[in-house]
């Protein structure tokens, strides 16, 4: 018989394989992305140099990368929570908007209650996402579509406010609100733009890790995510948890929006988030839903985002160009996942050989 290549599932995968595959996936994505850029008439070496220099070249660059990593980490935890339960909340972007809108509303209408800002952003974004959760739990309506449609609704809601009733009269007609008073701003640290949100970006992943690994609810969540039928069989209440997890996921994304708003930008404006919610999906997936890995991956993605902005300024490329790289990284990670689950074996001649040997 001729030798054939054959695919079969791996019974176990060594611990290092995951790391090797992740890094080679990123490397291949950057290589292919380079080819793509060259094809578009952009020098890939120059582009990558710009990215690295601006994001990691000096202290300011690093601090800017951290600034990007903060909302990414928080939003990454938000979607990770939903993904762990097998819920495809891909509307974190919209939940970030809602969190920000709610914060802005609090600051605008109840300026003395600055401590309630975080709470209101969590509540609003949580309920926003829980609506999709309710539709999924009660009516089995696909959450991918509802969370995404809600994102477009949230985006238009934001536009409504910044173009309409909340527009800053002193803003020269730009779609922005009046700047927050200092009392409603999160303090910044070390003379950089890094704000207090960083505490959350460190604490939240640790809490999530402990909850998922050691708590009873974390165990339930993982069972429900892996096999909802078995979860029902074990007496877990899937329906209630769908709504609860979507609420929490949305609430955490809302906090990310609040941090970005009162920690960094200080005013609500058109195009406020810049795709953190969508990038968070990649972050969570790249981190294999491990809360601690999310911190690291967020930093890497922060490099890409800072780099992307410099590309826009220096090389006049559209801001969404980095999405090409993000998409490619996801492609390669997915492809790499295959090699973690299956292995390729040569069948035919060799095996027949050792069969004869054993027979003798």
């Amino acid at each position, binding site marked *: 018989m001729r030798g054939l290549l054959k*695919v*079969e*599932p791996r019974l176990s995968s060594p611990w290092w394989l995951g790391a090797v595959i992740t890094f080679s996936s990123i490397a291949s994505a950057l290589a292919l992305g380079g080819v*793509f*850029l060259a094809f*578009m008439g*952009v020098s890939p070496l120059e582009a990558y140099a710009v990215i690295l220099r601006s994001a990691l070249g000096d202290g300011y660059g690093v601090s800017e990368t951290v600034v990007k990593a903060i909302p990414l980490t928080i939003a990454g935890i938000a979607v990770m929570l939903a993904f762990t339960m097998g819920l*495809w909340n*891909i509307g974190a972007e919209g939940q970030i908007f809602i969190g920000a809108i709610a914060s802005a509303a609090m600051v605008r209408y109840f300026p003395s209650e600055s401590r309630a800002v975080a709470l209101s952003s969590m509540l609003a974004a949580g309920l926003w996402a829980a609506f999709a959760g309710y*539709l999924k739990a*009660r*009516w*089995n*309506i*696909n959450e*991918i*579509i*509802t969370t*995404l*449609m*809600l994102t*477009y*609704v949230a985006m*238009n*809601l934001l*536009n*409504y406010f910044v*173009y*309409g009733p909340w527009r800053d009269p002193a803003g020269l007609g730009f779609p922005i609100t009046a700047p927050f008073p200092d009392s409603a701003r999160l303090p910044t640290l070390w003379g950089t733009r890094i704000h207090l949100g960083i505490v959350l970006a460190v604490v939240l992943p640790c809490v999530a890790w402990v909850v998922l690994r050691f708590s009873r609810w974390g165990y339930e969540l993982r069972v429900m995510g892996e096999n909802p039928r078995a979860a029902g069989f074990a007496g877990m209440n899937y329906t209630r948890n769908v709504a609860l997890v979507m609420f929490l996921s949305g609430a955490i994304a809302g906090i990310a929006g609040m941090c970005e708003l009162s920690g960094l930008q200080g005013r609500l404006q058109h195009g406020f988030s810049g795709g953190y919610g*969508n990038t968070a*999906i*990649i972050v969570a*997936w790249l981190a294999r839903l491990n809360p601690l890995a999310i911190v690291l991956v967020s930093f890497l993605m922060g490099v890409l985002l800072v780099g992307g902005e410099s590309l826009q300024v220096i090389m*006049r*490329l*559209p*801001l*969404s*160009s*980095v*999405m*090409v*790289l*993000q*998409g*490619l990284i*996801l*492609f390669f990670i*997915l*492809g790499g*996942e*295959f090699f973690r*689950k*299956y292995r390729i074996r040569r069948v035919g001649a060799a095996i027949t050989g050792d069969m004869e040997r054993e027979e003798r």
Partner: protein
Amino acid sequence: MEILVPILTAAVRSGTPILYATLGEILTEKVGVLNLGLEGIMLLGACSGFSVAYFTGNAWLGVGAAFLVGAVMGLLHAILSVTFKGNQVVSGLAITMFGTGASSLLGRTMVGFTIPGLPKVPVPYLSDIPVLGKVLFDHDLLLYGSYVLVLFFCWFYSSTRPGLYLRAVGDNPRAADAMGISVDKNRYLYTMVGAGIVAVGGAYLSVSYTKMWAELMSSGRGWIAVALVIFSIWNPARAVLGAYLFGGVEAFQLRLQAAGTTIPAPILMMLPYVMTIAVLFVIAIRQGKGIIFGAPAALGTPFYREERD
């Protein structure tokens, strides 16, 4: 009646890109592959279609190019989800991201250009029918192409051997495989063709509808098409209804704005998205929880022949 004609005509025109995308996705899903990259594929189709149309001066070449680009994205999705058995949701999101980024990058030099687009070709006799003639039969050929495609698919799924095989693969790949039908070949083919048709929907947007290219111009239509596939219960004829309904909402919204309504634009622009959710809700209530008839049973699950239970 006469006041309605322009709105209905606009509904058909703005529903057409969604219709193409829905038809393409129905094809892909019927064979058991879930492709959520529609938004990215439409954008790439719009961008490549427009650029080829602009630089060659031939709009049809643009449409053909869009189909090819879409098919290449379909190929990518098929490689990841069929051969590599990867998660189809993530693969679709990756395609959306890649398509969004790549189209912005590709199209960055063409912003602000316009092309003549496709000529109107009134269908003889049919376009003389009062109201309906104007609404349905006074457009360009690419729009008529969607009518042909709907009729073709209705016939293809029910009365042809390849159509039967396609449904078999989507419903029970294990059985189809045991009957000697190649699951992988079918999935590759229809994922590619389906994505090609989605991209033609994108091309309609830039080449025929707006006659220009703008970054992110599909603005969620790809996702609406994903929802419409469920709305249509995987039936091409019902997809027409859904697509024009959405086209109608969009046309109505634009007309209200043009008429200087006091309702702010962003509120009106929410309408299609709110309606998508409302439509899914109505379907869910009508069908009862958890049971969606007509859904291909093996949708979204990779097939591995030697898997044993």
